[in-house]
């Protein structure tokens, strides 16, 4: 089933006799119920698309690589083998999960936007916001599968509760990454441009904490104007970028009871609002 077919099915369901008729609901409630059905259908179609693509193989390959690396690192460590395995495996798991999800999302979304099948979708009574939310919800489901796959190899070394907090935090990080891919795909509609921009954005978001610390301890030197400009750029970036350095910290797995997922949850909630709003505006601007 292609995404366009899913839209057609969602459209048919939305207009089926009795759809939204639960007693005497208001027109607004019926609209909301129809929109929810569209989002659900699109999310389901995205999940199905992932399942039929190479995403499962990519996720399994990532999990196998992490399992191999953790086993190797633990075997050659002279002391603290479990800690060595986690400290090397968890960061790799994070990067692998981001790459697996981003590659699938960028290729699926760019294809739909570039080959014109999006126009077929939007010809049906599906709002742009509905398409954005449906696609993003589907990506969140794919993100959950990816997070589970890459976390599994760490289960041999990490305490279960800490690993659960870490995996949940990784899932939230992947939801933000999925949203960013959605935004970038709408802007570029090309896989290489989308992926390169995402990687730059992701690295900056992971390292913004380090850059801020550096700017505090070693202020930018040079002419005053340049220094001020550098500080200003850094300040703007620090306020706009998601603080992905707060997500899925390896220390949570190494030091029992040190997990602090609160800031990551708040950060995710903020980006749950930013992504659809920005995507909606950009989508409207590009497609008239």
């Amino acid at each position, binding site marked *: 089933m292609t995404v366009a077919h899913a839209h057609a099915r969602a459209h048919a369901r939305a207009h089926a006799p009795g759809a939204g008729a639960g007693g005497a609901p208001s027109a607004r409630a019926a609209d909301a119920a129809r929109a929810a059905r569209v989002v659900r259908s699109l999310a389901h179609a995205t999940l199905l698309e992932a399942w039929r693509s190479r995403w499962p193989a990519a996720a399994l390959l990532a999990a196998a690589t992490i399992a191999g690396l953790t086993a190797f690192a633990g075997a050659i460590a*002279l002391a*603290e083998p479990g*800690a060595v395995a986690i400290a090397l495996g968890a*960061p790799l798991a994070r990067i692998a999960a981001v790459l697996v999800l981003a590659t699938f999302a960028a290729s699926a979304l760019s294809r739909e936007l570039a080959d014109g099948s999006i126009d077929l979708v939007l010809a049906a009574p599906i709002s742009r916001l509905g398409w954005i939310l449906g696609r993003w919800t589907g990506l969140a489901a794919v993100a959950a599968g990816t997070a589970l796959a890459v976390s599994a190899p760490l289960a041999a070394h990490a305490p279960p509760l800490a690993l659960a907090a870490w995996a949940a935090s990784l899932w939230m990080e992947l939801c933000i990454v999925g949203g960013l891919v959605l935004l970038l795909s709408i802007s570029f509609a090309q896989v290489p441009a989308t992926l390169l921009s995402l990687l730059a954005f992701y690295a900056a978001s992971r390292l913004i904490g380090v850059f801020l610390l550096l700017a505090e301890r070693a202020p930018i030197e040079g002419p005053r104007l340049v220094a001020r400009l550098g500080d200003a750029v850094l300040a703007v970036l620090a306020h706009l970028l998601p603080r992905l350095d707060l997500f899925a910290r390896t220390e949570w797995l190494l030091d029992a009871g040190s997990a602090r997922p609160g800031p990551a949850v708040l950060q995710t909630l903020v980006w749950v609002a930013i992504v659809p709003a920005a995507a909606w505006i950009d989508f409207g601007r590009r497609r008239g």
Partner: protein
Amino acid sequence: MADARTLAACVLAVALAAQAALAARTTRTWDPDHAIGPPPPALATRIASLDEPRGAAYALALVLQSFDAQAGQQQRIAALDRADVLAWLARIGAIAPDSGYDTFLATRVYAETLSDDDLRALLVQVRARFEQAPDASWTSIAHAVWLAGHRLGDRPLAADLAGSLRRHAGPGVPDWARQMEALLRADLGELEAARRLIGALLDAGTVTDERERRVLIVRLREAERRATTDERPEAGGEAGR
């Protein structure tokens, strides 16, 4: 079409064989200076690891501990450049202060090959690291006490290291490790300090095993007896004169 495919398969097979032959003939030379070189800068390591300090520190530790085994050969650890090794250990500890891997490598792998002066400097470095992360490094400082006492023969340094272990020991540190300083002070003839420490250990109720209590008391009595015996000939000499 079939011929073209067969030709492509033949070319691929020959090319793969050539690659294997090339790889086999490429000489894997040992670093002639046996120098690992200075460690990578802390900031570069942090950025390269996307701000994952523990992962970066363990990766550096694995590189360091494997440096003496290259290209299928084993090199004597004593031949490695000591200054570089000590700099790597310090960098690993600075990147991940909560880990005990660097102190483990320092005391169990590299300490045996160092000169007395280098070893003394290393033990002081290990004590500083232990005080940063007592739970992770207490086994290393306990081994450092042994190195100071038996390898260097420097019992005052051993007692100082044991004192650091007693003062900073967390709840996970066993009693024998806390008792080392008292025993070393007794052996050194520092009776007042030994009495105070053993008294404090017994009063705190941490030494619950009767045999351990007896050992502490016996060692103190022995030290007192030794001190008395040492004083007697001196006193006799004075009298004889």
